[in-house]
C-alpha cells in the first residue's frame, strides 16, 4: 500500500515534468485528484484497511495528496507565466510616438535666478523688503548721499518724472525706506526692477537688481567679505575665485567692487572678460554714516554693509546668454529653454 502511494507520487512528478501545456496539467489533476482519480479511489479503499492502521494510512494519504497538489500548482504557475509572457510579447507599442501633451510652462530666467539668490539669502536669515519703482529723488539719491548737482549722479542715467520724482535707478532706494520703518539688527534684501536712461547692445532701460544690507552693532568689513564670498560660491560654484577691490559709491564707505574669475575662460582671459580673467559681479561697501544720519540712526552705534548686483548679468553668466536684449524680448523659443 505504501509503495503504491510512493509510486503514484513518482508517476505524477514524471508526468508533470513531461507536460507541455496548461491543459496537460489540468488533465493530470483530473486523473489523480478528480472524483474518479487514482488517489481519490485509494481513499475509498480506506475501509478495507485494518482499523488500527487507518489513521496512519489516512494521514499518509493526505500528505501525498498535498504533495501532488503542490507539484501540479508549481508546474501550472510555470506554464501560466510563460503563457502571459508570450501574450505580452504580442502587445507591442511604438514608444517613439511623442508623449501626450501635458502643458508645462516656463519661468522667465530672471525669475529663476532671482528665486535662487533670494533663497540663499533667506537661508542666511535675510528678509525681503520692497519699495516703489517710481521713487522720490530723496530715497533714490539724496538719502544715499548723492546731493543734487553732484557728479556722482552722472554714474546713473536717470529717467525723470518730475524734479523730485524719478524711476529708481537702483534698488538701493529701499535702504533708507526700510531703516526708517525698523530698528537694527537688520538683514534685508530688496529685489526688483530698476531703470536707466540707456539702451544699446549691452544696456536695456529696465533691468533687475537685488540690493542687500545688514546693520547691527559691530558689523565689520570682513563680514561683508565673508557673506558675499559664501553667496558667490553658492551661485557660481565652489571653484570660483573672488576678488575685492576698492571703488566708490556715495552711500558706502569703504566701497568695493567684487569680481569673480571668468566663468567662460576660468581666468585665463577671453573676450567676455576682456582678457582680464575677471568679471565684475557686485558692488558693495560699508554703509556710509551719512546714510544712517538720513535714516535717523546713530552712526556711532551702528555699522553695516550693503551690496547690489544686476540680475541680468548673473543670469547671462549662469546660462551663457550673450545678448542682454533677449530678456525683454520674450521670444517663446528663448523662454522655453528655462
Amino acid at each position: 500500500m505504501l509503495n503504491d502511494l510512493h509510486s503514484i507520487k513518482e508517476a505524477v512528478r514524471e508526468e508533470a515534468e513531461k507536460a507541455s501545456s496548461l491543459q496537460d496539467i489540468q488533465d493530470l489533476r483530473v486523473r489523480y485528484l478528480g472524483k474518479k482519480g487514482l488517489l481519490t479511489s485509494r481513499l475509498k479503499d480506506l475501509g478495507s484497511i485494518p482499523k488500527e492502521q487507518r489513521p496512519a494510512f489516512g494521514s499518509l494519504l493526505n500528505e501525498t495528496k498535498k504533495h501532488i497538489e503542490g507539484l501540479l500548482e508549481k508546474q501550472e504557475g510555470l506554464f501560466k507565466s510563460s503563457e502571459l509572457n508570450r501574450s505580452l510579447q504580442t502587445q507591442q507599442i511604438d514608444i517613439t510616438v511623442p508623449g501626450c501633451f501635458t502643458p508645462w510652462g516656463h519661468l522667465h530666467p530672471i525669475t529663476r535666478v532671482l528665486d535662487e539668490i533670494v533663497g540663499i539669502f533667506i537661508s542666511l536669515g535675510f528678509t525681503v523688503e520692497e519699495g516703489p519703482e517710481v521713487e522720490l529723488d530723496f530715497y533714490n539719491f539724496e538719502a544715499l548721499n548723492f546731493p543734487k548737482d553732484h557728479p556722482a549722479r552722472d554714474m546713473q542715467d536717470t529717467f525723470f518724472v518730475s524734479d523730485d520724482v524719478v524711476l529708481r535707478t537702483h534698488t538701493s532706494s529701499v535702504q533708507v525706506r526700510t531703516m526708517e520703518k525698523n530698528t537694527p539688527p537688520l538683514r534685508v534684501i530688496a529685489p526688483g526692477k530698476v531703470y536707466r536712461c540707456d539702451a544699446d547692445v549691452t544696456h536695456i532701460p529696465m533691468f533687475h537688481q537685488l540690493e542687500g544690507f545688514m546693520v547691527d552693532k559691530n558689523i565689520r568689513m570682513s563680514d561683508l567679505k565673508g557673506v558675499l564670498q559664501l553667496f558667490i560660491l553658492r551661485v557660481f560654484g565652489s571653484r570660483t575665485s573672488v576678488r575685492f577691490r576698492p571703488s566708490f559709491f556715495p552711500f558706502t564707505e569703504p566701497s568695493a567692487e567684487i569680481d569673480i574669475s571668468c566663468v567662460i575662460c576660468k581666468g585665463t582671459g577671453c573676450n567676455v572678460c576682456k582678457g582680464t580673467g575677471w568679471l565684475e559681479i557686485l558692488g558693495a561697501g560699508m554703509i556710509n554714516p551719512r546714510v544712517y544720519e538720513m535714516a535717523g540712526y546713530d552712526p556711532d552705534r551702528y555699522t553695516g554693509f550693503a551690496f547690489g548686483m544686476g540680475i541680468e548679468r548673473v543670469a547671462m553668466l549662469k546660462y551663457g546668454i550673450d545678448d542682454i536684449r533677449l530678456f525683454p524680448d520674450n521670444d517663446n523659443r528663448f523662454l522655453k529653454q528655462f
Partner: protein
Amino acid sequence: MKASYNWLKDFVDINVSPKELAHLLTMAGFEVEAVEAIDDDAVFDIGITPNRPDCLSIRGIAREISAILGTHFKDISVNIDKEQGKGPDVVIENPELCHRYSARTVSGVKPGPSPEWLSRRLESCGIRSTNNIVDVTNYLLLEIGQPMHAFDLDRLEGGKIIVREAGECDSFKTLDNEERKLSKDVLLIWDANKPVAVAGVMGGQNTEVSSGTVNILLESAYFNPSSVRKTSRLLNLSSESSYRFERGVDLQAVSIALDRAAQMISELAGGRISGITDVYPRPYQQRIISVSLDRVSSVIGIDIDESFFVKTLLNIGFYIKGDGKVRAVTPPSYRNDVEREIDIIEEIARLYGYDKIPATLPVMQMSPAPEHKTQALVKTLKDSMVSSGFSEVINFSFMNPDSLDKLNLPPGDSRRNFIHIRNPLRKEDSTMRTTLVPALFNNVSMNLNRGEKMLAFFEISNVFISTGQKLPEETIQMAAVYHKGPVSSLWQAKHDGFYDLKGALENIFATLNISNVSFIKDTSVAPYLHPGKSGNILINNEKVGHIGILHPVVSESFDIKGDVAVTEIYDVASILKAVPLKTTYVSLPKYPYIERDVALIVNDEITVSSVKQVILSIQSDIIEAVNLFDIYKGKPIPKDKKSLAFSIRYRSASKTLTDNEVDELHSEIIRKLQINLHAELRS
C-alpha cells in the same frame, strides 16, 4: 583719464612693468580699463571715481603710485626766472562762485607749433595739439589737474578781468563757434565791457589766442563745483575743464599751475612774465579729523598696526598729530573728498589691500522675520500658471499711450491716468504702463511672426496709476494670454483657448483653497473683449478681474490672427485677502455613493451654472456633487438647442443609500429641470 607711463615716471620711480602697475592700480581703487602700447610708452586708461578729482592728473596718479610701491615722489618745483611789472587787474564780484582767481600776463609771445615731445604727450592722453600756448594750458590740465585758460590780452578791453554772473547778458559765443543761451546766474569772465569766457567751462571766440597773438593773459582759478556743473548742464557742454571743476580742483595748486604755465610758455614761445595777481577771497580751510585706531580696526575687521597707520597716511600726503589710540589727521588740500573718520578708514583699508582682509561671518541675534505674504503669493501664482502650461514674460514697464486707444478705452477710464517720463528714450516708451495687456498682445504678435504656435504667456508686474499724489499708485497685476491657433496634432481639443485659460485660473484658486469663485457674464466687462465671449471673475461676490476672447477688431490692431484668450487680475493682493486663514479637515465619507446621469436638451442660452443652480436648489442633503460631462450640438438636436449631460453623485452621511431613495430624488430633479428650464430628456 589717460595716463602715460613715461610721463608718470617724471614724478615717481616705478620699478614694475606697465602690466604689473595696471594690476596694482586696479587693486588700489583705480581701475585700469586698458593698457595701450605707443612707441616706447604705455598709456593707461584709468577709470577715476567721482570722489578722486585729484587723480584726474598725472601728478595725482603718480602720488598714488608712490604710496602703492613705496617709492620716491618727485614733486614739481617752479621758479620763474624773471618777473616784469605788476599783474593784471582782477575783480571777483561773487566770491561764493569763485574762491580764487590768479593771473599773469606774458608779453611778446610768438605762437607756433609745439615741440614734438609736448604734442606727443598731449596726444597720448587724447588731446589734439594746436599751438604752443594753448598746448601748455592743456599740458598743465593733464599734469596738475588744474584747468587753465589763455586770453589774447590785446582783445581784453581795459586789459582787466571781472568775475561776474551773466545777469542781463543772455547769449555768448564760445570757442567752438556756438552761440550759447545763458541764464542769469551763469558765472562769466568779463573784461571791462563784455563777457570773454563761461567760467570753468569754455573760453570765448572774441578773445581766443591766434597765430597773430602777441600778448596773453593766463587764468588759473577755482570755481564753485556745483555752479560749474549747473552751467555745463544748462549749456549741454562738458569740457575737460568743467569735468575737473565740477569735481573740485586743488585750491592750493591754483598758483603753482599758473607759475609753471607762464614759465613753460616763456620757454617755448618767448615773452616776458608779469608779476602775479592772486585774488583769493575764500582761502583753503584745513580740516582736522579725529581718528580712533580702535575704530579703524573694528570697522575693517583687522588689527591695524600703529606704524602701518602712520606710514600709510604719510605716504599719501596726510599729516598726523598726537600719539596713542586717537590721532588728529589733516588731509592735504587736494583731497577734498576726505572729511570724516570713515574716509580715513577707507584709505587705510584700500592701501592695506582688500584681498588681505579676512572673510568672516557676522554673529547676529536671531529675530523673527516679518512674513512677506504678497511675495509668497506671487510665487504660488507663478508656479501655478507654469504648471498650467503658461510661460512667464517680463516686459518693460513703459507703455505707448496710443495702445490705450487700440484697447478702445473710454476717455474717463482710470487706465488713462498714466504718468509721463520727461526724458523717454522713444515716444513709444514715454509713459509708465497702467495695464499689462498691450505688451502681452505684442508678445503674441511678435512670436506669431516668428512662426511660434500655441502661445501661452503670463506676466505679474506692477502697473502705475497717477492719483494726483507725488508718487503714482503701484499695484501688482497679473495678466495672461493664450493663443491656441489651429491645432493639428494628435492632441487636438475641440474648444477654443477660453476654457484652457479659465482652467489655469481655476487651478490657481484650487491651489490657494479659494472656493467662492464665480464667472459672470457682463457685456460691459472690458471694451477690448468679445462681448459674447467674456465675463467678470468674482471672488466672494467681489470683482477681481475678467476673462474673455479678445475683440476681433482689437486683435487685428495688434496684428494677431486668430482668437486670443486673455485674463487680468486687477490686484494680486485682492486674491490674498480671499485665501482662507486656515484649512479645516472634513472627515472622509463612511458610506458609498450612487451616481445617476441625466442628459438634457435645452435652449442655447441656458447656462451650465443655471442648470446646476436648479439642481442644487432642491432641499436635500444627499446631493454631493453635480458634474458636467458633455456638451453637444448638432444632429439630431434641433438647431437652436444643445444637449448638456450631467452626472449627479448622491451620498448620505448617515447610511448606505438604496436605489429607490436615489431614483425618487433623481426623478424629482428631472421634473424640476423640465418645468424650470423647459428641458427635455435626451434618450
